[in-house]
């Protein structure tokens, strides 16, 4: 009988593969050049998105993937500059009555839709009406609106019931916001997204086609009328230098990076934080920090169960948590996260440390004494986390470990996103759940500020301060009110804010004009390719 060598062969094969992995990692650095310079062909880029958006209808869809694509096609009345302050886009000028209730908007003249028609106040009126009735964020504004009136071909008036401070930010916020469609498209539209063959906007790119699972193609709109002022963030003049934009769904993060390195994509979004150091040293790709903040949030059930009216117990949980450890574990390198107790991120004018004493306390002993005070006797706490987002699952696991070690009886339930969303709607099924919040221009848009959002935080104190917050028009006074709201959030703890997290993107060196950091939704007017 011959000697049996099977084990030896397996070990040999495994070793060989592993050596390969190390080799490729080092080897790619030298072969840095990008293949396939298609100089004569029309200039085009391929953008690798993490997922396919359900629709590009910004009025009813809040997916960030949809916004990244749709903002090239559709425009709103206002947009944001690089400081995320609202600036006019389709509006030329505005005038506000002295009591703050009447707002007159003068539209830019000569703005063309992709079907060749000129945009007038009739189109704006129809778009605002549909958004106010069916749009995701529309009711937030329209609950305060008496009526919208067409004054002339290029002027429109919004009449508020009482002064409403965040109106401009809401009109500028394109994600789930009031983009302007032609009247014919939007007047009969409802809650259902507008169909693809009616994607007609005023943006620098027009929608060409969607090939499900493969790409969404946009093409430069020749008749685009740019503004005259200098570009600043999303504001100012928008000049399209690239002819075609392909948005390709590439769900796997490793494929997005390797695809950019191989020259198949020019831009890959949302790369895992742990790969940042490796790729920032890699000469075949460029890394770019995205300014769009991600705020991981843990919600408490205020309506039912063990946390109902038990603020002490919520404080105990908060006092226990170590945000630094959680964020480092879930995100990685220090420049991609900040353990920041302010509800709004540091870069905004809403940054304040009022009330944040218990944030990042990392004190299991304090937690234990608070829990005893709250009358906690080891009852089961159901904590729901979704596996759809790695950051949710990772932070959820770190938190439940920390809390269990401190004596809380945490029942961690990991679900797919659809299951979690359906279960969290039922107040009987959970005590805490995990989610995240993206950028918002005004704190009023936070999900937890709505009484109807799961968690159902609605106390008289909240109602009073929210009312004061919306009617105050002066920014300085509004900040004072916001400080009071934040303090209240840290007393009643409807949510625990974990911190601020940032993504990074990678792109091919042939892509020019991207700047030092990326706006929340990457935009490609003003960019060029070699």
């Amino acid at each position: 009988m011959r000697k049996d060598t099977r084990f030896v062969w397996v070990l040999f094969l495994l070793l060989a593969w592993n050596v390969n992995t190390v080799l490729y990692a080092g080897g790619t650095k030298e072969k840095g050049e990008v293949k396939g310079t298609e100089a004569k062909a029309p200039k085009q880029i391929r953008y690798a998105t993490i997922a396919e958006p359900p629709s590009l209808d910004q009025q009813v869809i809040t997916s960030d993937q949809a916004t990244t694509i749709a903002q090239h096609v559709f425009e709103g009345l206002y947009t944001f500059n690089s400081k995320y302050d609202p600036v006019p886009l389709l509006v030329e000028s505005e005038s506000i009555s002295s009591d703050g209730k009447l707002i007159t908007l003068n539209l830019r003249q000569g703005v063309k839709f992709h079907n060749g028609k000129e945009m007038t106040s009739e189109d704006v009126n129809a778009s605002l009406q549909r958004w106010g009735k069916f749009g995701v964020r529309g009711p937030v504004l329209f609950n305060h609106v008496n009526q919208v009136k067409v004054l002339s071909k290029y002027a429109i008036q919004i009449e508020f019931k009482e002064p409403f401070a965040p109106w401009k930010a809401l009109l500028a916020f394109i994600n789930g916001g009031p983009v302007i469609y032609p009247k014919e498209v939007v007047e009969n539209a409802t809650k259902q997204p507008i169909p693809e063959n009616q994607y007609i906007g005023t943006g620098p790119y027009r929608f060409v086609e969607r090939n499900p699972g493969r790409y969404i193609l946009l093409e430069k709109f020749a008749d685009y009328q740019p503004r005259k002022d200098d570009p600043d963030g999303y504001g100012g003049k928008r000049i399209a230098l690239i002819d075609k934009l392909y948005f390709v769904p590439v769900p796997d993060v490793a494929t997005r990076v390797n695809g950019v390195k191989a020259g198949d994509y020019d831009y890959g979004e949302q790369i895992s934080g742990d790969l940042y150091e490796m790729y920032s040293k890699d000469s075949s790709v460029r890394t770019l920090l995205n300014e769009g903040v991600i705020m991981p949030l843990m919600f408490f059930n205020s309506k039912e169960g063990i946390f109902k009216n038990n603020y002490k117990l919520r404080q105990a949980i908060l006092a226990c948590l170590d945000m630094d450890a959680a964020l480092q574990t879930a995100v990685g390198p220090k420049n991609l996260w900040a353990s920041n107790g302010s509800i709004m991120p540091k870069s905004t004018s809403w940054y304040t440390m009022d009330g944040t004493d218990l944030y990042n306390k990392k004190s299991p002993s304090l937690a234990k004494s608070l829990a005893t005070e709250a009358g906690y006797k080891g009852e089961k706490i159901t904590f729901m986390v979704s596996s759809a987002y790695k950051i949710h699952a990772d932070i959820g696991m770190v938190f439940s470990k920390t809390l269990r070690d401190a004596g809380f009886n945490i029942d961690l339930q990991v679900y797919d996103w659809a299951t979690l969303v359906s279960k969290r709607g039922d107040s009987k099924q959970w005590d805490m759940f995990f989610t995240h919040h993206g950028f918002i221009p005004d704190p009023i848009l936070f999900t937890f500020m709505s009484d109807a959002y799961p968690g159902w935080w609605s106390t008289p104190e909240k109602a009073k301060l929210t009312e004061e917050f919306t009617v105050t028009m002066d920014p300085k006074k509004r900040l004072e009110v916001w400080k009071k709201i934040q303090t209240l959030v840290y007393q009643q703890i409807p949510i625990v804010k974990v911190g601020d997290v940032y993504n990074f993107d990678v792109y091919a060196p042939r892509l020019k004009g991207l700047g030092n950091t990326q706006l929340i939704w990457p935009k490609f007017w003003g960019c060029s390719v070699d």
Partner: protein
Amino acid sequence: MLRYVLKRFVSMVPSLFIVSIIVFLFIHFIPGDPAQILLGDMATPEQVQQLRQEMGLDRPLYVQYLYWLRNALKGNLGNSIFFHQPVLGVILSRAETSILLASMTFILILCIGIPVGYLSATRYGSRLDQFISSASMAFASIPTFWLGLNLMIFFAVYLKLFPSSGFPSILKDGKLSNLIYLVLPSITLSAPNSALVIRITRASMLDVLKEDYVRTARAKGLPELWINVKHVFRNSLNAVISTLGFTFATLISGTVVTETVFSLPGIGRLVVDSILRRDYPVIQGIILTIAVVYMIINLFVDLLNAWLDPRIKSGAGASV
């Protein structure tokens, strides 16, 4: 023979009917709501309810099913909630990738699995056989994403021989050269499946090698190759064909990891994504389609086995 095939096709009708009822019950049983998923985090419960009404999801289950059945019998599988396109179109747009990928992989499996398995069996116990055994066990246990990514890094990023990912439609572009996009994915997929076919071929052939008639043939002094091919290989094909049958079936519908790694628009990802998004009409349509494909493949396997071994007196063999 023809009668048998007809009978099998007729028996598909009740099977598909049962599949459709089970799928319908399943998808409405699991938690989750397509309206909520579509509208996102910001939507209020009233808005979700509004959309549910527009989509007809608030009607009693049996009414929804009967509506679906009535349309399905007319050939209309409804519209995808997520894509806002007809379900049939969505499935067909993915079918191209899956059929091509499955076929390329299948050819690779045939070219690797059967000859290597044959070699392994005829050189039973040799060092070559030992190497093949270890390699196939190793390939069976390697995760697909691991192999796929390594191939991508080496052949697409480092050598730049193949594109890293994606698959532009051949039907649309008319370029047969797009097949190059499927080379790395089909190698990835063929690794574990070839390993299975190698082992099955080897095991079946070894079984036959021990049969009396093979010994007799050897004793008669017939040439070794003749015995191996004519007697041993042919008679050991039964399990191999069954294996190839369900392997091809899974290649059509169940290659979600490979499709994700190489971002291919295939059926496997559509199945998983639709389930995760609770896109009810697509789930219904696609599982029915898969069921039809599987039934046809299984019929084909049964016919092939009967044809290879005329002694088989199953329904398939009796009337051949």
